């Protein structure tokens, strides 16, 4: 259950792995559990498809949204808001941090590291093994090491988000599961969730899938995509 994860959940991974879609779905689930929820969009890597595009909708649902200190949905400005530290200090918040892709994306954490109690932090790595760089256990572990070096903290769980968007089948989840199981064996880090878009996946979820089932809705893709 999302409520059982650590109070601060940092979402990281390869760019294009589906971090933002996972993070937006995650805060919605937390919010549905009547929690006081904040999400920070600290993506300074990608310019299109950022969680701040959903700001209005999330705010309407009572979620605190923190993004750039510079107004504008798609500015190419690597600026983050000073408000990003607020939900770290205010322990009444359940906090989700949506980082930019790769080790470059983790640099933003520099601001939070000195004030974060590591016991309060989960660092989740979202993985889509249909992305060429994370198609093998070696690829996933190489990226994981880069992310950990950038974040200066260990990855505490994997999210199997293996998909081909609208062409996703149950087989995709199995393919991702096989790669991540091997990664788990080698690193000791568990597969925390297996995520998939409910409307797309018509088949039953195979029982051998590891981690908690994490059904999602499309938030970031437009109807014609």
């Amino acid at each position, binding site marked *: 259950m999302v409520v059982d994860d650590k109070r601060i959940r940092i979402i990281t991974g390869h760019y*294009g792995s589906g971090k933002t879609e996972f993070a937006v779905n995650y805060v919605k689930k937390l919010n549905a559990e009547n929690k006081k929820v904040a999400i920070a969009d600290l993506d300074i890597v990608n*310019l*299109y498809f950022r969680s701040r595009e959903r700001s209005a909708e999330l705010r309407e649902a009572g979620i605190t949204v923190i993004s750039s200190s510079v107004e504008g949905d798609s500015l190419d400005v690597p600026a983050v808001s000073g408000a990003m530290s607020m939900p770290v200090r205010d322990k009444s918040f359940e906090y989700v941090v949506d980082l930019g892709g790769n080790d470059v994306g983790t640099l933003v954490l520099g601001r939070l590291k000195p004030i974060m109690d590591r016991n309060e932090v989960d660092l989740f790595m979202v993985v889509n093994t*249909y992305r060429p760089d994370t198609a093998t256990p070696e690829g996933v572990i190489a990226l994981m090491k880069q992310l950990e070096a950038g974040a200066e903290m260990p990855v505490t769980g994997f999210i199997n988000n293996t*998909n*081909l*968007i609208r062409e996703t089948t149950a087989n995709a989840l199995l393919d991702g599961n096989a790669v991540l199981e091997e990664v788990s064996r080698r690193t000791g880090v568990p597969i925390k969730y297996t995520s998939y878009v409910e409307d797309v996946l018509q088949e039953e979820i195979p029982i051998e899938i590891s981690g908690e089932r994490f059904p999602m809705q499309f938030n970031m893709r437009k*109807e*014609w995509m």
Partner: protein
Amino acid sequence: MAKYLMKGNEAIGKAAIEAGCKYFFGYPITPQSEVPEYLSSELPKVGGVFVQAESEVAAINMVYGAAAAGARVLTSSSSPGIALKQEGIGYLTNASLPAVIVNMMRGGPGLGTIQPGQADYNMTVKGGSNGDYRNIVMAPASVQEAVDMMMEAFDLADYYRIPVMVMSDGLIGQMMEPVSFDYKPCKELPPKDWALTGMGEGKKHMVENLVMDADECEAWNHDHFKVYNAIEAAEQDWEDFMMEDAEYAFTSYGTSARIAKTAIGILREKGYKVGMIRPKKLWPFPIKAFELHDAKIKKYLDVEMSMGQMVGDVALACGDASKIEFYGRVGGNIPTVDEFVAFGEKVMGGDK
């Protein structure tokens, strides 16, 4: 065939490598920076060369050098960067040098915005450099199509000895979609017996641009136009979407055409007999599509992320400018399906 989930810009880089391109010269600009980023790490792995030039102008002239030496070579940029390359594109064209140039268009004019746009039609299709010339211009509407067109672009460039532009918009560059790569040459390619590869035992090769004599320069122009005529005859390419019984036709390309497809689905449900002619190449423009369909089309609904730059070509193709209605968004704004549906209903006015 294995499918990967890739971002448009990465997939374009990989498609170039699969097509045998080993040389990239360019300069970063949003929203195409993942093309050079990807190739900077991947080209060295296949024995290729990636150079981040000091400017777009430098990059296009490096392309000239590599093309003259007979290499498959790529540069990419986005709108204002492509504007900077125009002189070099004209030089490449005049020297009959094959090269592929990617434009991930953004909002304009000038420095504009970093969001997607389609307002470089005039610059690219009509030619933003000096003199009488044409370049083949391809317009993908998905990441897979961008991949397939990139591969075809290298073949067409070599076959006709002409620069080929792959003109897309920032959204397709940034979007993630499933893709597979399967390069098969689309033409039987002649040997590059003109390339500057060292004289050896053979004869001297020259790649020239300056022509001192007016008659000789005129003859060059005529030679180029023989090639352009051959391309116009052989290479028109478009998609007919729900055109079988259509009485109204959207005309659109790239991302706008994708949005239009969803809108057409909704308009069809409402009972409208509407389809779309989607040019896959903007030059040569698919005049044949209009010859095929025009007799039963009452109105064309041209939709673009520009102020209507393609309308002129649609008018020439159908021969009646009064049949065209236009709707567009600019500056980096992406039109919505609802906007296209409303536009469609306004133009068709209950004529089901």
